[in-house]
């Protein structure tokens, strides 16, 4: 296993990404980036089987269009990690900004703490192998899972009484599922979203994701594996059908 260490101190993102690509091309399986301080686009469009450990704060669009690699961030993330990502894993030991997992089509994204606005917006799925998952340990702000067309969002609310207290959950959702720990007030749901009973079947479905989350962040899943969740799904797969008439 080839390990490459890069000191990102004071480096612009373009040469940094160049070095990452070069290392992957040369067969690196593990890349350690030290002193990362807000560099954007890390692992943007990167393919391959490699683990990138990011020590510091990752800038916007971490892992955008990425397909395959694993990014582990020891720190917080700016906006839109996992943007339009296709495959691979992002693990954030901290919180992330707005539009986390925007339009994500595949792979998994784990955030230890909180996320900002528009988390999981327009996530979609395609065939069996492209079913993206966003798991948030803490809380989320407004507009979670809007326009969602597929995939899974789980908000675990660890250490929170109400992990989602903002409105607009799942407006325009037409595929996929949003699972939030505890109760969610009806008035927080967006147009086109509805609650569905969270039962044993749903628990079984989320269990592997919860377990993986706990493995990444070294916590115990036992307290999280019950049916005390709210499940939010599309009221219809065709939210815009019926809005139009022909000329």
């Amino acid at each position, binding site marked *: 296993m080839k390990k490459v260490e890069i000191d990102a101190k004071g480096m612009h*993102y*373009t040469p940094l*990404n*160049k070095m990452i*690509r070069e290392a992957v091309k040369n067969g690196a399986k593990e890349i350690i980036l030290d002193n990362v301080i807000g560099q*954007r*686009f890390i692992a*943007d*469009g990167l*393919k391959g089987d490699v683990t990138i450990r990011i020590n510091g704060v990752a800038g*916007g*669009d971490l892992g*955008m*269009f*990425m*397909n395959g690699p694993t990014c582990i961030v020891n720190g917080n993330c700016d*906006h*839109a990690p996992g*943007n*339009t990502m*296709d495959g691979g894993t992002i693990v954030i030991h901290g919180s992330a900004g707005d*539009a986390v997992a*925007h*339009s994500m*089509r595949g792979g998994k994204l784990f955030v230890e703490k909180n996320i900002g606005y*528009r988390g999981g*917006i*327009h996530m*979609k*799925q*395609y065939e069996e192998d*492209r079913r993206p998952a966003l798991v948030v340990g803490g809380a989320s702000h407004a507009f979670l899972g*809007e*326009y969602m*067309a*597929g995939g899974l969002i789980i908000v675990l609310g660890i250490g929170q009484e109400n992990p989602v207290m903002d409105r607009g959950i799942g407006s*325009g959702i*037409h*595929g996929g599922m949003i699972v939030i720990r505890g109760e969610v007030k009806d008035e927080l749901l967006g147009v086109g979203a509805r609650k569905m009973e969270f039962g044993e079947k749903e628990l079984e479905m989320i269990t592997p994701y919860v377990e993986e989350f706990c493995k990444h962040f070294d916590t115990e899943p036992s307290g999280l594996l019950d049916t005390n969740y709210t499940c939010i799904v599309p009221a219809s*797969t*065709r*939210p*815009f*059908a*019926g*809005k*139009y*008439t*022909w*000329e």
Partner: protein
Amino acid sequence: MSLGSVPLKYKVTIDREQCMHCMRCINNCSYGVFHREDDRIIIDSRKCTACHHCISMCPRDAISLQERPVDYRSHPLWTAEAREDIINQARTGKIILAGMGNAKPYPVIFDRLVLDACQVTNPSIDPLREPMELRTYIGKKPPRLEIDKKDNGDIEMLTKLTPNLKLETPIMIGHMSYGAISLNAQLSLAKAVEKTGTFMGTGEGGLHEAIYPYQKNMIVQVASGRFGVDINYLERGAAIEIKIGQGAKPGIGGHLPGEKVCQDVSCTRMIPLGSDAISPAPHHDIYSIEDLAQLVRSLKEATEWKKPVFVKIAAVHNAAAIAAGIARSSADAVVIDGFRGGSGATPKVFRDNVGIPIEAAVASVDQKLKDQGIRNKISVIASGGIRNSADIAKSIALGADAVYIGTGALIAMGCRVCGQCYRGMCPWGIATQRQELVDRLDPEIESEHVANLIRSWTLELSELMGAAGINSIESLRSNRSRLRGYMLDEGTLDVLQVKPVGA
């Protein structure tokens, strides 16, 4: 009481004397206007869309079509259309969907601009005997070149050039997605741009495998739905275009109805079979001009800064200021889509009322970029309602580097601008996914038609340039002194920076 039916839009008649009972019209009409009862062809005019497919295929020229055979009491304000829209909405309570571009009779600025020609003082040029330079480069141009002169006389250029697209003619085909149009239609366009050395847009529907052989002529689009967008798609394209807005519907997103999402469309867009493909109104990772710069750079970074990135906006009131912002974002070209731009399906109220004409938008964008000294940072592509080579020449003289054509290319394949694209039954095999209709369109033949159109317009363009004594497209660009406005008001002339005729 019932509202009853509204009068027929079109009346179809068959000249029974002429008719030879070949029954082709029955098979040709995908809307079911004709059917056979015993030996007689029965006509249901209410189903007619004026697509002209039957008329074009009738061996005897026996079919006639009349628009609005029933008169309303004439009224300048309460037109038949105004009345019928109200009746429709009184019945349904819904938003009216319409196809193709703006159908209101706004004055066409192009038709009030005239081009110049040489007489006596400087000779015009015959393109037959003099080379005409129509080759166009889309992308950033350096403000100056740094050159190092070696002792041995060699010259080395120190300035690093950014990638440009090289077009053999300033005519490209705009973005019409697979899904909105058929694969055969897209394939025809792709073959045509390859033949003519230019480029076309994929639209936001991804890139079908059948188009891969033409990928070096494709501009791949990234729209708010991100359909079909992955790293391989970005790498395949010759350039990448971020679609912010569309001239036919500024400010709103798009929905491809689930009925149009067949197996192939589903794979290409990477969405489940039969699901609605919803493109939100904004990109939800772009809420500011800084965010746009971030998306531009993310696309450049993903493709290692090897590809030009375009940004397409609808022509709206502040297009010039927006374009100036885009010019500072690392983008290589800005596409301005005027309010006459086409669309498969658009809420009618948007199609007919939102946005501004391309002529004014291009002129003001070009002027603003020049005023700010950043015109070289970005190419300007005019799009929306370009009907002929004169419109192209005028667009370029108003400040565009190149144009996108859309509806024009579809008409070259048979489209008769019936405006029913959203129904998915296009009898010409263009705006449909029904295999039996798609099969009507032969990409070998139609690509030649589209290529011919591009060739004709390129020829005419060089003739127009030659007549004006211009031998390079660069000398026409933004050369407003070669335009005059005819019966244009002072305000418009001022925006266009064009003098009136005679001045």
